[in-house]
């Protein structure tokens, strides 16, 4: 209801900026290889639809699998950390250390180990999702008030019941905050991994289009990658709106 009306200014602004972009390109006769106008990009979309499409799927596959694996491991690790303080003390610093290594520096190492296939891309996409989810999930599982734990004790609830009925539920807003971040970063991870060494995927297409001065195709590829991130982000947001129907004021 309010969605369409609320979005009208954003749509007008976007259309305006695209028109401005086209006008600048025309007014200053910017060469296409340097900066193509929106019209060139649309033409590139039509002419290279096949190439874009065939490179879209591998990147989607890597990003999604990385998203699922990275987040699953982060969630399981967070559960372990919350139950075993020793585990948290032992592995949390290591997780922080891994997070400080720039992903772009890890990528060549993984390509050397795992070769040019899907594996290093999925691992990098997963790695980039991993840390925010781990941190948020640990916070979420611990965000239970002492009074609530007292209540569960008075009700003679078992540890399992406290976990499933209280901790998991209270962690959901924290988890989804992390998943929304991961939904866009997993695409970044997949594309960065494809830059390092790959002959398929949107990342490889970006490199190829740049080196061959096929700027309209480059722009079309970048736009496709952005659309992919938006699609995953929207899916996560939709899932959140269905699953978490209450507000947690302390998130963010």
């Amino acid at each position: 209801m309010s969605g369409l009306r609320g979005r009208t200014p954003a749509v007008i602004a976007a259309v305006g900026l695209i028109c401005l972009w086209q006008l600048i390109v025309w007014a200053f006769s910017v060469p296409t290889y340097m900066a193509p106008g929106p019209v060139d990009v649309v033409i590139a979309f039509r002419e290279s639809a096949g190439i874009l499409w065939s490179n879209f799927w591998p990147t989607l596959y890597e990003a999604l699998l990385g998203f699922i694996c990275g987040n699953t491991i982060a969630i399981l690790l967070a559960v372990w950390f919350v139950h075993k303080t020793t585990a948290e003390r032992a592995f949390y610093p290591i997780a922080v250390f891994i997070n400080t290594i720039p992903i772009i520096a890890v990528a060549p190492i993984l390509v050397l180990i795992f070769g040019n296939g899907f594996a290093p891309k999925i691992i990098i996409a997963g790695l980039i999702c991993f840390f925010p989810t781990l941190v948020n999930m640990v916070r979420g599982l611990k965000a239970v008030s002492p009074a609530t734990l007292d209540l569960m004790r008075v009700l003679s609830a078992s540890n399992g019941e406290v976990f499933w009925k209280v901790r998991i539920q209270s962690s959901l807003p924290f988890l989804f905050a992390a998943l929304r971040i991961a939904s866009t970063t997993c695409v970044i991870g997949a594309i960065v991994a494809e830059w390092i060494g790959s002959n398929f995927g949107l990342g490889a297409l970006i490199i190829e289009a740049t080196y061959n001065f096929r700027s309209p195709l480059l722009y079309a590829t970048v736009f496709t990658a952005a659309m992919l991130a938006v699609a995953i982000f929207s899916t996560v947001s939709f899932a959140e709106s269905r699953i978490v129907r209450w507000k947690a004021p302390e998130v963010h």
Partner: protein
Amino acid sequence: MTLDCAPARDLAVSIKDLDVKFGVGDNAVTALSGVSVNITEGSLVTMIGPSGCGKSTLLRAVADLVPISNGGLTVLGQSPSEARRQRYFSFVFQDATLLPWRTALDNVKLPFEVGGGGGIRADPGELLELVGLKGREHAWPDELSGGMRQRVAIARALATRPKVLLMDEPFGALDEITRDKLNEELLRIWRETGTTIIFVTHSIAEAVFLGESVLVLATNPGRVKEFLPVPLSHPRKLPVRDTLEFVEITGHLRRSLEEC
């Protein structure tokens, strides 16, 4: 009147020479020392004392939330942990502690879903009606006011038809008008359910208005100062607080608390 037949009633909570200490060795702090009190079934006892006198600790000891260092404590003849497993008592906290991802009705049903779900199961809809929330069954906690959330918490506490209701400053965070209203309704619920209620408060007026008797605790170490019967007749309504009798009792309590 009700107090006259007290000796005939069974004991809901029996406490004898109770000590509660926190910490070990030289750092140990004595929260309660030599507390003895008997609370008969069906009575409404309010507990008052200066801060740090251990009134919450005493209530939490009854609820098996705090371990006993010395002495005896039974709830309907059972140890606190056994009474907890048997669901003899319920606890209402200062904070409503509702689970925000559950509707009012589902919050009331929580006791049926955990801890083996044993004991009696009262009708959750009827309970919400009893606390004056008919029609708000499917409201989320963040849609309810503080007073309404506390009403849901009371309904949840009554869901297993407990013999003893332990209340730790349940209306302490509410505004005075809401608190007055809930005080009156709590008396009604007490009359209708016949539950024994132990009610901790830091308001003298609330202690006298609600209590059949008032347990006054003194501090350093926490101990019983006085166990004062309140001879006001039931059913009590708010205007009773303007009577001379009421003012005399609160005056006595105020002086008693100053000496603590």
